[in-house]
């Protein structure tokens, strides 16, 4: 059996999405900036897609900028506002569990002379609103908080954040990386008070290489990419029309079934959590339970063993998942989200993330838990660590990590 449970990294394209893309590959392959009639038609259809996306989040069509994905959207939003407002203030707040792209941007901004605070989260991965209040100062220009924490699945209190920002006597712009929320849970930019929002097509069975940024009207903003404007001055370049139209189709499918999906996956999520907690000893759920957790994420740490080995062993059984182990990360660091919620290195290394796509079934979840049990048991039998005492004895400082990195970069 093949079970893909890494849908937070990417998803399989929906077959119906390709049907729509084909039109723009072969029939209406023209770009919207041509002068001929077919191009004018493409222009109109891309405009309609813009309108469609705007409607799904209660925004205006011209507030939607198409990008190559959420990474670019995050860059465009955060650099766009920060660099533009540098004169007004240089303080930015991002949460401690942002996606790597926002983290890298934040670090880059520090280099450019911005002051960046990393907003802490509680043990469930939810940002601390009172800390946010404390961090705000007259130079704060932008706050960026992820909509749904991509690793531990916590739902961040977007509306409460924007209400705090509104209480400030100067304007603080609010960006959210909604890659894991859009098309999966409702978003209303008016109600939530969002100024900028990043979305990625390949997170909901749409194409890779396409996304959009919502930018509220009159938000000060400068482009990231300069060029020959055609459809949209804010993001020049040959428009990825098949991508846009494919993402539209994927969104339509998702919005049509959103209620149903939420219900189904809330059930599956809790079913899976229950089975794992009942049937596998020495596990720790990472993130919140119930209402505060996205229906599409389950994340556990398995004591005494390491996540890369777990996920590779699962993959041999046809089950594909993610891990927070240092060994599976590019920079050989344990997952910072686990550390942010108060976990130690072992908990990060032993963490496995299961994320649902719209087509996962109960049968697949059952198969996954069955295989997981076997794999965890087998790996534990191989491990020199058998108890919490062993854990403590062999914990070490984590300093060796850096030694590893050196070896790696010399290799």
């Amino acid at each position, binding site marked *: 059996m093949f079970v893909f449970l890494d849908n937070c990294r990417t998803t399989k394209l929906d077959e119906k999405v390709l049907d729509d893309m084909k039109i723009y590959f072969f029939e209406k392959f023209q770009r919207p900036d041509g002068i001929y009639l077919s191009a004018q038609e493409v222009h109109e259809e891309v405009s309609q897609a813009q309108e469609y996306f705007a409607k799904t989040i209660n925004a205006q069509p011209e507030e939607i900028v198409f990008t190559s994905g959420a990474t670019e959207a995050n860059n465009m939003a955060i650099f766009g506002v920060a660099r533009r407002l540098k004169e007004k203030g240089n303080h930015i707040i991002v949460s401690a569990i942002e996606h790597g792209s926002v983290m890298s941007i934040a670090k880059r901004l520090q280099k450019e002379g911005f002051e960046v605070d990393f907003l802490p989260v509680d043990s469930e991965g939810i940002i601390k609103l009172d800390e946010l209040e404390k961090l705000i100062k007259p130079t704060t220009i932008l706050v960026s908080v992820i909509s749904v924490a991509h690793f531990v699945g916590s739902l961040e209190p977007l509306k409460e954040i924007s209400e705090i920002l509104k209480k400030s006597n100067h304007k603080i712009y609010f960006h959210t990386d909604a890659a894991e929320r859009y098309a999966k849970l409702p978003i209303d930019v008016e109600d939530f008070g969002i100024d900028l929002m990043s979305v990625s097509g390949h997170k909901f069975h749409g194409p890779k290489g396409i996304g959009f940024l919502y930018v509220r009207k009159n938000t000060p903003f400068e482009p990231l990419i300069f060029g020959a404007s055609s459809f949209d001055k804010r993001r020049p370049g040959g428009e990825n029309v098949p991508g846009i139209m494919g993402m539209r189709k994927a969104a339509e499918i998702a919005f049509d079934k959103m209620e149903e999906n939420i219900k189904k996956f809330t059930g599956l999520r809790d079913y899976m959590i229950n089975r794992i907690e009942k049937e596998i000893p020495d596990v720790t759920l990472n993130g919140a339970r119930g209402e505060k957790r996205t229906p599409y994420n389950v994340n556990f740490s398995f004591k*005494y*063993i*390491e996540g*890369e*080995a777990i996920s*590779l*062993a699962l993959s*041999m059984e046809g089950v594909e998942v993610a891990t927070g*182990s*240092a*060994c*599976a990360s*590019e920079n*050989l660091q*344990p997952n910072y989200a686990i550390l942010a919620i108060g976990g*130690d*290195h*072992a908990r990060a*290394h032993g963490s496995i993330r299961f994320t649902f796509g719209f087509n996962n079934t109960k049968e697949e979840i059952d198969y996954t838990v069955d295989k997981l049990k076997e794999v965890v048991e087998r790996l534990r039998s*191989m*491990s*020199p*660590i058998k108890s919490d005492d062993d*854990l403590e004895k*062999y*914990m*070490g*400082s*984590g*300093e*060796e*990590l850096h030694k*590893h*990195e050196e*070896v*790696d970069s010399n*290799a």
Partner: protein
Amino acid sequence: MLKYNELVIQHFKNPRNLGKIENPDAQATEGSVACGDMMSVYLKIKDGKIEDVKFESYGCAANIATGSMMTEVIKGMTLEEAEQITWKDIIEKLGGLPKSKYHCSNLAIDTLRKAIQEYKESMEKSKVESA
């Protein structure tokens, strides 16, 4: 990251010489949980030769596979031969590892050398004691 090859996968799936040796002649544990990579090596030594070897691993697939391969390689070797084995030898024997996993192959060799070293030291000590 590059792909794990078939041989690595085989060693990960069915590690050779897995487990503990009761009353080993030498043993060492290296790495740490914090860095996500740990190994224990147990040796049975007779007449300066490695008669038996077993290992346990807390770590990634590369760690497990290199542990497995290391034990296969050194079994039957003299201690001196075993000490000459490098992480590069093990990677070669495995038909290569993804570059980002090179560092994992270190641990198996480190732990082996530590065990041999401790064995030698304890021999010295017992010599001195019996002298």
